[in-house]
Every structure is written in C-alpha cells, then in structure tokens.
C-alpha cells in the first residue's frame, strides 16, 4: 500500500478549475517527483494534500487513512510536513523561533526527542547553526530554503512535501540541497518533490509524474522518464 494515494483530485479556485482529476501515489520510503510547467498545478496539488485547499472532488489517503477535508494543523500531526513554495519562513522571527515552530505540533513529552531532532537538522544544515539568533528575513535565499526544510523536518514527518526547493539558488547550492534531499530520504522519510528543475528532480527520484495544465500527462519510473523523448524535449531542453 502506498504511503500517499491521491485519486481523481479536482481543485477549484473560485470558478477556475486548477486540477481536473489528478491521481498519483508515493510509495513508502521513496522519492516521487511532480514536474511540469508554470501554472500546471503542482503547488495546488501539494496544498490540497496538506489541507490548505479543500478539494471539490476526489480523495487523498495517507497511510490508508482518508484525509480529504481534514484541517492542515491536524494533517501535520498525522505525519505530513509541507515546505511551501517561496519557503514561507517567518521573516520577523529568529532562525531559532522558526525551528521551534516546526515542532509546534509535537507534545511537550517529546521534548528530549525534539532537542535531538533539532541537532540532527542543524547537522544537516550547519550554516543555520551559526545563525540561530539572526532574523529569518535577513538570511540569504539559499539559507531560507535550508531553514524551511530544517523546520519541516522538526515535525518528524513520515511524508515530506517539498515545493521547488531549488528555486532561485546558485548551482552549487542546488547540488547541496539535492544531496540533502537524498540524505533525508535515506534516513527513512518519504518525499513528494515538486520541481521545475526536472533534470535534478528525476536524478534523485524513484518515480516521476508530469503534470500538464491540471492533468497527469505521464507517470513512470524516473529512469524511464529521464530517457523519454517527450520529457527530454519539453522539460530537459534536450533534442
């Protein structure tokens, strides 16, 4: 049974239908990636999974449990963390406070475990450790991305939703971020990765989905997609 199973998802913004029946699934322990052009509906899909948007139709199951229509703060408690597009760090709070908020949903009884997870996150992103007292709004773009990911990890998610973690970052930083995504996954967290950088995304992912204007156009193993002519032409800029 997949950890996340989305079927026939329809999401509307007012009168505009952004998703016209999207189905996808993410296997336990894997990385799945959702690639597609601007406005295809990638972020919309993630927002529906984390509960920020109420789907008009369709179902979302996490770990076999129906979570469609469940409030976002409850979904976090079930084990889904979402690092949103544009990072969404709290600019007027310190790095420290942002990290604390990542663990907001966890009970006081997990205090020791939270401290350990915090150390682990900071080991993963050593640059954050030097900047704990700095306001998040004054971090560089790459550092903000690291903070958003570290913060999401502090929720101890079983499923991590990442929305364009490489957006606007220098090539070396992109390399680092993708290596960390691999590490997070190797440590046991299942990941649904939304990316414009299809090349890198397909490299780290096990499975890939191509979203075109609110519909899944292709679904295959990342290897196969990487090699397919259509993907190479449309998303990898080759051929």
């Amino acid at each position, binding site marked *: 049974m997949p950890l996340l199973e989305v079927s026939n998802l329809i999401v509307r913004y007012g009168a505009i239908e952004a998703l016209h029946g999207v189905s996808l699934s993410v296997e336990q322990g894997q990385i799945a990636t959702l690639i597609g052009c601007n406005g295809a509906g990638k972020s919309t899909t993630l927002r529906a999974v*984390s*509960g*920020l948007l109420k789907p008009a139709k369709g179902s979302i199951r996490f770990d076999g449990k129906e979570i469609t229509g469940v*409030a*976002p*703060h409850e979904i*976090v*408690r079930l084990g889904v*963390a*979402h690092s*949103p597009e*544009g990072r*969404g760090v*709290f*600019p*007027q*709070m310190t790095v420290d*406070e942002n990290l*604390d*908020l*990542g663990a*907001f*949903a966890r009970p006081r009884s997990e205090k020791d475990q939270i401290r350990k997870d915090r150390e682990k996150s900071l080991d993963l992103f050593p640059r954050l450790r030097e900047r704990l007292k700095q306001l998040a*709004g*004054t*971090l*560089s*773009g790459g550092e*903000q991305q690291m903070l958003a990911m570290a*913060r999401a990890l502090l*929720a101890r998610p079983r499923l991590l939703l990442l929305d364009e973690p490489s957006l*606007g970052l220098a090539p070396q930083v992109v390399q680092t971020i993708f290596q960390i995504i691999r590490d997070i996954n190797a440590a046991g967290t299942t990941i649904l990765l939304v990316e414009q950088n299809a090349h890198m995304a397909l490299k780290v992912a096990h499975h890939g989905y191509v979203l075109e204007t609110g519909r899944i156009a292709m679904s295959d193993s990342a290897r196969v997609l990487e090699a397919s002519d259509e993907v190479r032409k449309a998303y990898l800029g080759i051929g």
Partner: protein
Amino acid sequence: MDQLLQTLKDGVTLGSLYALIALGYTMVYGILKFINFAHSDIVVLGAWLSLTIAAKLLALMGIVDPPAWMGAVVLVGAMVACGAVGFTIERLAYKPLRGAPRLNVLITAIGVSLLLQNTGQLSALFGTSPRRIPDLLPDTTLLSIGQVQLKLLDVVGAGTAIALMVALEWLVFHTKIGRAMRATSHNVNVAALMGIPVNRIISFTFVLGSMLAAAGGFLWALKYQTIKQTADSSWVLLGLKAFVAAVVGGIGNVRGAMLGGLAIGMIEQFGAAYLSSSMKDVYVFTILILVLLVRPSGLLGKATIEKV
C-alpha cells in the same frame, strides 16, 4: 512646573487607556488584516457592564460604600463578559467570512458596531441617557506636589493598564500561544502548516482584544464617572483616537500600540495645556498625518522585507 507635572500625569493616564484600546485594533488587524469597527463598542460595553455590575453588587449587599476588593471584581466581571461577547461576534459574524473580500468583512464590522450601539440603548439594557458609576475607590490623595495631586484613582488606573500591558507583552513574546499568534499574524497558511490551529488562535485573539477593551471601558468609567449612552457620538471619537494610536505605533505591532497610545495621550494633553484645549482632537489627527507622511508604516512598524 505644576502645569508640566499635571500634564504629564494626565498624559500617562489617558495614554495608557488609549493604549489598552489600541491593542485590540492592532492584534485583530495583525491577524485578519481588517479594522474591527466594532472594537470601540466593546469598550463602551465594558464601561456599561462595569457600571451595571457595580450597581447590582452594591444593591445585593445593601451597602453604599464599596469595599476595596469590589473594583477588582467589577473589572474581572466586565473583562470576562466582554471576552465572551468578542468570541461570539467573531464566530457568528467574522468567521463565516474568512476568505471573503475584505470589503465584505469591513461592512459586516460596521453592521456589528451599529447593532451593539443600538441594542445597548434598549431600556432593558442600558437605556438612552447617561448614568453615573458608583464610586469604587475612595477619593484619596496620595501625594501633593504644589497644586498637583496624585490621587489613588490615577495610580490604580495607570497601574492596572500598565500591568495588563506587561502581561500581554509576556504572553505574546514569551509563551507558546504567543508565538502561535505572531506566526498566524505573519502568515496564516504557513502557520497552519506548522500545526497551529489558526481558527482557535484567531478566536483567542478576539477574546484577548475584547478583554483589554473591557478594561479600557472600566478605567474610562473610573476616570470620568459619567457614562454616555451606547450610541453617543463621543464614543466614536474615543475609538478613532485609539485607532490612530495603533496606526501611529505601527498597525499590527503590539509594542507599537502601547507606544502609540502613550504618544497620543501625551500629545493631546500637552496640546490642550500649552496651546489650546478646544483643539485637542486636532493635534491627534495632525500627528497621524505627520507620522504617515514620514513613516508610513508607523513608529515601530517594519516595512516587511521578504527574499524570494
């Protein structure tokens, strides 16, 4: 010298009152980005409830001079009742409009304000004429410097306001729920993704703002004793000045509201004492215009910088 001391004293007592009321405007704006027009009506309700509770208690106990603890009971009673009213208003009037255009919410707030003003004047409630609140504190003078008298009333009034603000400051900046309030005010969606129950935080904010408004109403009643009927236009001016205080301090900023309240109180009193007392409202709005010209986001408001 006497005049300076007297004006300082008046500025602090009035300013701390404005600050209490300004906090409600600023907290609600911080989270929902709308101006709660009904906020000043909660202040009025707080004043009238203080009067009603005090009068009922005295009648019940069959006494004329209230014991020292009664002021505290009246204050807590008014705060709890106004907190409940604030909660109900948010649930019934504003929550269903979450995500609706801001104009709709604004118009609803004006509607709620009119409803409160006019319901308050029903004869079964507070009626259509001013009334006097029983003296809750003895008219004791604690200290005299020249002509200036520091009364028990002044100390209790400013002390209560300052204690409440210190408590709020602690709540907002040093507790888990305060952190959740700040996160929700920065970004509701991201706050929800952190596992913060944003609807509960919004309710809590309304309750808190309404409780502070009630305290403002109580202190107003203590200071001025005669309480005008709920739809009297003088209340609108009070609400407006407190709102100006919130804007001057930086709307959405809790510390800014406190500073703005004090600043507006001082400016009003100093202007009245040294320039012309008939123009005191003009100074307040002049300062508003000046601040908005020089620092559009208010004294402590930050123009938010977000890297993309």
